[in-house]
């Protein structure tokens, strides 16, 4: 027991030391304007500059507006993607006809990158908020959809057979067997989708700008404010990772039968 506790703490120490070391190298490289030929740090802002910019942003009255705008757009887009993705995923996973009807157009749309959607998004939707929500939606949709399909298709057919033999109707089986059976995959899809939704945020917020972390990052680029660009990137990364981790934690809570069985972190 004592051994495990010790190795837990020392693992954390190792992780922190690693991050600190990376920061030190970055600071040195930026300050020295290191030029390694293949890559150059001559114009890269140092961690200290980024920290300064981060503090300035933290003190800015606009930060709250930026964060809430972005959270709103990601939240809406993601929320709709979750509903649509799971619903379509259940249909496609269960019905061959649904698969033949729904999957081909979706597969064609899948590889289109968020940036390419901008002009159409602007033309199709009545408001720029809707256009932005569409882009975060399309970013989240496919991981959720595909993981749901995968989860549904991988539900043990014997479980379904047993449920049928116990008198289960098609609807009851969907609710009582398919959904819980696919739940672990769906949770994975939801966690990934949350991440991709955030990735698309910068692209989305190019559509119309006043508030939003993506917009803040974009504005910093226009103004050649490099430390601010890094702050924006880091902020998006943190929020994306954070919400993804949160989702996974919630998902694990809701699927207790799955995580413990053969779990190896």
């Amino acid at each position, binding site marked *: 027991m004592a051994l495990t506790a010790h190795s837990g703490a020392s693992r954390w120490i190792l992780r922190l030391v690693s991050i600190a070391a990376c920061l030190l190298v970055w600071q040195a490289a930026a300050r020295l304007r290191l030029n390694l030929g293949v890559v150059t740090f001559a114009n890269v802002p140092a961690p200290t500059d980024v920290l300064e910019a981060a503090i300035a942003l933290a003190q800015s009255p606009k930060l709250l507006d930026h964060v809430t705008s972005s959270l709103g757009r990601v939240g809406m887009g993601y929320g709709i993607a979750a509903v649509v993705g799971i619903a379509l995923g259940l249909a496609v996973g269960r019905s061959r006809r649904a698969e033949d009807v729904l999957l081909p157009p979706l597969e064609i749309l899948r590889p289109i990158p968020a940036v390419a959607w901008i002009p159409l998004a602007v033309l199709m939707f009545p408001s720029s908020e809707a256009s932005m929500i569409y882009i975060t939606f399309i970013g989240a949709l496919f991981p959720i959809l595909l993981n749901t399909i995968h989860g549904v298709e991988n539900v043990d057919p014997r479980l379904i057979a047993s449920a049928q033999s116990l008198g289960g109707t098609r609807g009851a089986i969907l609710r009582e067997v398919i959904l819980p059976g696919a739940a672990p995959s769906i949770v994975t899809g939801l966690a990934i989708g949350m991440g991709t939704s955030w990735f698309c945020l910068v692209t989305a917020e190019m559509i*119309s700008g006043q508030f939003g972390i993506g*917009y803040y990052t974009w504005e910093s680029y226009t*103004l*050649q404010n490099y430390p601010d660009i890094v702050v924006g990137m880091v902020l998006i990364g943190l929020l994306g990772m954070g919400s993804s981790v949160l989702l996974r934690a919630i998902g694990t809570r809701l699927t207790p039968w799955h995580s413990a069985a053969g779990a190896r972190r």
Partner: protein
Amino acid sequence: MRRKSLFSVLLLAASSVVTAAQSAETVRVAVGTQDTTINTATGGLIIRELKLLEKYLPKDGKYKDVTYDIQWRNFTTGAAITNDQIAGKVDFGVMADFPGSLNGVAHEKAGRKSIFITVLQGSVKGSGNGIVVPSASPVQSLSELKGKTISVPFASTSHGLLLRAVKAQGWDPEKDVKIIAQTPEVAGSALQSNQIEAHADFVPFAELFPWRGFARKIYDGSQANGPTFHGALVDAAYAEKYPEIVVAYLQAALEADRLFAEEPEKYSELIAKVAGVEAEVNYLFHGPLGLQTRDLTWKPEYRQAVGTSIETLKLLKKADQGIDIDTFVNERFIKEAFKASGLDYDARLKSYDQLALKAKDAATGEEIKDPKRVAQIWVKDEPLVRHYASAENALKALKTLEAEGKTIRVLYAQDRNSGIKLLGAQAWFVRSESGEVSAFLLKEQAEAWAKTNGGKVLDYPGARAAVLASTKGHP
């Protein structure tokens, strides 16, 4: 003896080979252009397409054995060019006053320096920037936009114009109007789908969007009376090391300017082919009596524009330091280029004329005298634009042209008040009792004219119909 002389000959040969090897260097001349921002054409697109750099780059003196590595990179914004300059990938860059001053500040922050070496094209009154609304919008002037949302490319010269215009209305830019950022590409789509109420933009979008039929221009930059221009910058260290190359670039720009002045239609078509901006819009800017004037001199108004831009950016808290205008704006190289090309810098500096139109009326044959009354028609499949002394002459000519089975590409008319060139199809007209037709950008301007001078306010179809009716019975 012989061996010694043979040895010294060999030594001499060897050393000259070494010296030759030393002087055979490659010099990069990398230019960042903005092809779609058509008023930078003389500093970018034209030079590139006509290979004018190759013509002017020095090949003597210390450049005798130099190999030039000429690189052209195209961008859609000045900020992107600045980024590449800071990263050392581009030497010359073209952009407007606002991004230009940000360029200066960015170089200083990186421990370097850039210099603004010339103006390329601009307007001392402010034309070139404009505000448009979607075609379906009922809005006819800026005053109707109070409380509405206006988008503008962030930190651009049109952003400056918008703030100036808002201030001139007596509004508070934070409260009375909502200004949001939107790039021209996105704004185009947004105007088409009626997603925004108004959009301010720089060359050529405030005219291009109306030309393409989904927007209407309701404000010309000249109404705010503040200069705007696009010009060229270069890294100062590069200029110190290769001043002759900088002069050569500027001479290429001067030649591009001359060629354009001589054959505006031809080069408008060239820009259309390469950049995708229609020739009719290019001619609007570059043709005689055009919306902006090509000008390679540092007029005090343009210097002032650079200064104003940095102050505005500081006020918006988008820039945290200023630059020394006197060292940033550099006249040395452009003056040398003028001299080398046999032109008079001081004379051009003093001249505020638009590109003159020396022509005869295509219908009546009379000399065209009053630039504020000029109208022009570009007939399809004709290489040259037809000029008319007055709008009514042009409208009458329309009838004849159509009877001949010809279609027109565009009709231009000069604004009676400001003298700016307008796209006829979107202009407002006043037709007096005597049949005299005057053109105006805004309906309210036409109404004001009609009030003082009499006459009927008409839109383009109305003006055509009226002129048509009056010529009935005349062959």
